[in-house]
């Protein structure tokens, strides 16, 4: 890699090892000879260490301190001869390599080098002074790192900081790898060498230990990061999809994955704190009425058709609310199950709210710096419209087409920004579309209402058919299946940009689903109220039965009667379990409908189009049926509403979250497969720039909406009297009061009572409102200040425009002059060098000037930057021939050798 055509500007920045440089630029003689004498031992010391271990590719990682000075001296002497030879040979080699190098210069590095350049002169200076200071001690063969004055110490520290900074940021420098590698190694070596030396005064061993630990820590962090990235599931799958279908489709899968993570946490919460304790420590199945299948259902309880409806044994299992006992504590752990049940129900919502809001906040933070995009429409289209992830030629063709259209569109917009002849038509069409869609929504709302009413009638009748029992679910699924495509067809009238169109579409389907959901909920509520009104009757019946059973005559009074078998005890309808079952059924049917839609709508269609195309009268692939596109809006909303169901239902059916985890897992694999096998990319591939936050917003809304009915039920509906953890209580939240009274010390109970006082709560709410208002106004004023600053910057830039171009021209001329002088210098140097040391020492002072160069618009000036290096290290040539060898000076060398490659054009 040493022969890569490297721009000289780059090399200027690189403090390449192997060559010692002096700091006095004007006088070639002195700088050539004197420093080399003084510096040579040092250079060889470093080189010697390296030479001692020829096979070593990297410096020894563990020992930050320098070798013992005495040994170093010996090595230095030993290696001086070697180095002489090696240096010369390397010089020759580099010459030949220069020749091989073709003269092309790549783009001059403008920014990064300019940063480097600033460092360079300072370092050189440091070196010079360092040498002067040290030269007497060196002459008297004193050890190197021992007597550093305060000043030097400070300077080295500063240099050390620079190097450390370089190590930290080298990866973000636009250099080729070989250069980065050299830089990194050199900087690391420097840091290692001096860190030990500097630490000498104040506990060297401690310092070394700290460095070691820091290194270990960095390594550990890196390993951990590696591990973390490995742990992200489906990363490859999603990236695969992203490269085929663009980021908008991938955003759905990323959302799905996120949802899966959230559900896993919820599942862990519910499973670990409610279901497992109940199964392990609760009263076993069959011991009490609520845990037993009633006598009437017993014979059919294991039939598949019954189980499929979540009746029978499933209904009387830990998956549903009714199974749990109202015992205050269970097992030898004295686990407060009702309390845990309640707290888990609350924390499911708490956690979900927190995680949704947190991810929304982090999304907005990432996209805070927008606003100026209006100024750069064309440039953005030009420079950033290509999605480099596209790896599919079809997608690429679509992208070409869409870019061309967007170019043309924006050109036309620009030309005819004043003419708005079509605006009336567009407006009319949009109003029409919205009208049609509202009609659809109303129609579907009425349909659901009608069906729900009918189902209430059916539920009173006996012997209803399968269709009549499942009518609501079927109608809702059908609506969910056919309305979105209808909306999409209508939305074609509106002619929005697909990203905006997607949002509209999402909003409309959201309204549809919301209507469905709430109709469903209202129907459910009616049902619950009906059951509640019946409860009193059943309660009396139960008491009556038990009373009769125990007090009936004809039984020997002396022997106590065996208790009534739990299956025979009459019991209430347990509306909580009924609600849970409804949600469970809805979730499962929703899942099945989704999968069947995918199978029929996507896979079978794709197969048909693919294989029937050979024997069909028109082109199926390009013509009517074609392949399906991935329906982003429908899938996202399906996911969101499904999650809403889970949130609502998980309080009444703890097992629901487990079912949902399974569902998400299967749908991840199934949909990934379906997308890759039978869908085509969208006709207008568009980026999902920040619609993820839109998804999150919808999710938050659904979360809030699903919180409402649950909260209402908890706060104002009495729990069933004979099932569930809260049976026997007036309201569900009484469990908290009970715990506070019985398990906490009395003063805590008093404190809670005091906190629950409305006199305290209302001021607290008021305070919160005030805080919100205050923060809101602060953020508003900040954003206003931001906008003003931006305006100011823009104005300043306008002013500077002219200045800049003028200045750029002058600096370019300046640097050209210095370049000429510089090369002259170098020629002299070259001559003198032969006699002294093989390590060349060339220097120039232009670097100082260069540092002030703004780095804009003077590409020519960069060519003749001098190379500066201060850490003399040479590498055994066998180790890494391409990156480890001393890199020769660029320009001076070439001009001196006379066989230089063609100069790059200025």
């Amino acid at each position, binding site marked *: *890699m040493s*022969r*890569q055509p490297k721009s000289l500007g780059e090399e200027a920045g690189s403090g390449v090892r192997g060559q010692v440089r002096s700091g006095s630029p004007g006088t070639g003689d002195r700088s050539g000879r004197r420093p080399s004498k003084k510096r040579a031992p040092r250079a060889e010391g470093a080189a010697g260490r390296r030479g001692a271990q020829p096979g070593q590719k*990297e410096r020894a990682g563990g020992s930050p301190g320098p070798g013992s000075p005495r040994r170093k001296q010996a090595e230095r002497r030993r290696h001086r001869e070697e180095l002489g030879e090696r240096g010369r040979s390397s010089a020759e080699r580099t010459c030949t390599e220069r020749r*091989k190098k*073709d003269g092309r210069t790549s*783009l001059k590095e*403008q*920014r*990064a080098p300019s940063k480097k350049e600033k460092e360079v002169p300072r370092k050189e200076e440091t070196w010079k002074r360092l040498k002067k200071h040290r030269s007497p001690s060196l002459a008297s063969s004193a050890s190197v790192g021992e007597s550093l004055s305060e000043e030097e110490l400070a300077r080295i520290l500063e240099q050390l900081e620079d190097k450390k900074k370089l*190590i930290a940021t*080298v990866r*973000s*420098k*636009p250099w*080729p*790898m*070989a250069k*980065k*590698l050299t830089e*990194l*190694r050199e900087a690391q070596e420097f840091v290692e060498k001096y860190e030990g030396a500097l630490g000498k005064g104040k506990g060297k061993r401690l310092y070394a230990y700290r460095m070691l630990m820091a290194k270990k820590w960095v390594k550990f962090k*890196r390993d951990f990061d*590696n591990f973390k990235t490995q742990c992200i599931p489906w990363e490859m799958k999603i990236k695969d999809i992203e*490269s085929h279908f663009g*980021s908008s489709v991938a955003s759905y899968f990323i959302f799905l994955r996120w949802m899966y993570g959230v559900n896993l946490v919820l599942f862990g919460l519910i499973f670990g704190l409610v279901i497992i304790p109940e199964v392990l420590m609760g009263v076993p199945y069959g011991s009490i009425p609520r845990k037993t299948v009633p006598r009437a259902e017993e014979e059919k309880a294991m039939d598949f058709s019954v189980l499929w409806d979540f009746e029978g044994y499933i209904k009387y299992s830990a998956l549903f609310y009714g199974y749990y006992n109202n015992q205050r504590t269970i097992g030898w752990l004295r686990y407060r199950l009702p309390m845990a049940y309640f707290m888990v129900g609350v924390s499911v919502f708490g956690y979900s709210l927190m995680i949704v809001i947190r991810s929304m906040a982090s999304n907005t933070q990432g996209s805070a710096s*927008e606003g100026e995009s209006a100024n*750069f429409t*064309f*440039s*953005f289209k*030009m*420079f*950033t*419209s*290509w999605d*480099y*992830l*596209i*790896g599919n030629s079809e*997608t*690429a*063709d679509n992208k*070409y*087409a869409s*870019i*061309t259209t967007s*170019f043309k569109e924006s*050109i036309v917009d620009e030309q005819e920004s004043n003419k708005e002849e079509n605006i009336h038509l567009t407006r009319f069409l949009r109003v029409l579309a919205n009208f049609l869609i509202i009609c659809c929504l109303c129609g579907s709302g009425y349909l659901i209402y009608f069906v729900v009413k009918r189902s209430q009638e059916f539920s009173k009748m006996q012997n209803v058919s399968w269709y009549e029992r499942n009518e609501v679910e079927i109608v809702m699924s059908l609506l969910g299946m056919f309305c979105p495509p209808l909306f999409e067809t209508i939305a074609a009238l509106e002619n929005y940009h697909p990203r905006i169109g997607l949002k509209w579409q999402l909003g409309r389907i959201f309204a549809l689903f919301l209507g469905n959901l709430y109709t469903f909920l209202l129907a459910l509520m009616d049902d619950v109220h009906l059951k509640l009104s019946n409860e009193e009757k059943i309660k009396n019946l139960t008491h009556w039965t038990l009373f009769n059973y125990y007090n009936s005559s004809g039984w020997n009074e002396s022997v106590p009667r065996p208790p009534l078998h739990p299956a025979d005890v009459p019991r209430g309808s347990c509306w909580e379990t009924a609600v849970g079952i409804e949600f469970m059924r809805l979730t499962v049917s929703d899942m099945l409908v989704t999968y069947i839609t995918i199978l029929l709508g996507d896979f079978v269609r794709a197969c048909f189009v693919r294989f029937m195309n050979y024997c069909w009268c028109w082109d199926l692939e390009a013509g009517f049926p074609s392949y399906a596109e991935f329906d982003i809006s429908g899938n996202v909303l399906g996911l969101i509403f499904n999650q809403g169901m889970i949130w609502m239902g998980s309080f009444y059916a703890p097992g629901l979250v487990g079912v949902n985890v399974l569902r998400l897992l299967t749908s991840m694999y199934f949909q990934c497969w379906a997308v890759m096998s039978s869908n085509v990319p969208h006709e207008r591939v568009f980026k999902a*720039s*920040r619609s993820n936050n839109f998804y999150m917003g919808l999710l938050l809304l659904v979360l809030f909406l699903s919180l409402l009915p649950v909260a209402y039920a908890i706060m104002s509906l009495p729990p069933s009297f004979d099932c569930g953890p809260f049976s026997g209580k007036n309201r569900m939240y009484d469990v908290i009061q009970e715990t506070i009274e019985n398990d906490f010390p009395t003063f805590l109970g008093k404190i809670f009572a005091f906190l629950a006082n409305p006199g305290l709560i209302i001021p607290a709410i008021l305070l919160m409102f005030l805080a919100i208002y205050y923060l809101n106004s602060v953020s508003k004023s900040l954003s206003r200040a931001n906008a003003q600053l931006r305006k100011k910057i823009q104005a300043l*830039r306008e002013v500077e*425009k*002219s200045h*800049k*171009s003028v200045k750029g021209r002058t600096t370019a001329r300046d640097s050209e002059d210095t370049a000429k002088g510089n090369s002259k210098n170098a020629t002299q140097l070259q001559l003198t060098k032969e006699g002294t040391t093989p390590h060349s020492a060339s220097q120039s002072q232009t670097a100082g000037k260069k540092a002030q160069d703004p780095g*804009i*618009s003077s*590409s020519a000036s960069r060519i003749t930057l001098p190379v500066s290096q201060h850490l003399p290290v040479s590498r055994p040539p066998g180790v890494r021939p*391409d990156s480890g060898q001393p890199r020769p000076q660029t320009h001076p060398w070439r001009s001196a050798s006379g066989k230089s490659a063609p100069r790059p054009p200025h």
Partner: protein
Amino acid sequence: MGGSGSRLSKELLAEYQDLTFLTKQEILLANCWLLLHPLHPSGSSRASPSTVPGTQAHRRFCELLPQEHRSTEESLHTRVSLEQILSLPELKANPFKERICRVFSTSPARDSLSFEDFLDLLSVFSDTATPDLKSHYAFRIFDFDDDGTLNREDLSQLVNCLTGPGEDTQLSASEMKQLIDNILEESDIDRDGTINLSEFQHVISRSPDFASSFKIVL
């Protein structure tokens, strides 16, 4: 990681992780990928065992590698020719593929990529690379004549790349002129008729989705 892991020494791997925005897995993957593609040694000076052409030879090359002493260096310095890089599925559809290869190549004729060049490429196009780095390389990719500025020819070439190879999607001359005028109007701050790196980065830094689209995943 078995065979592929043994080829890169631990130290080198750690250094590559320091120098790129890639994770260990990605580096090994890249290494593996390069090794598993038939190689054409470009420099005659670097005689590798793969002088016999074709995949067969390459397989032998891979098998030979672990035993040989200088295996690491060999695998690092063998170059993969431009055609092979261009046939990468990730780059196949990219209109800038030639430019990307040229920008990242360090060989004299700019026609082949070594493993390190390839790592550079992947690093720049990785998720975590800094926007500055990305925009710097984007500028070099768009600078078709390598002269350090984007002039009108570069821009028109860029437009042609973006609108695809098909005749029907090409812009007409007047449209092209209009477009380039608009772009220069927006981004050419110092009004010298070209866009230089700092102007380019100024524009790019305002773009909301440049960093998310300027990436390639192996």
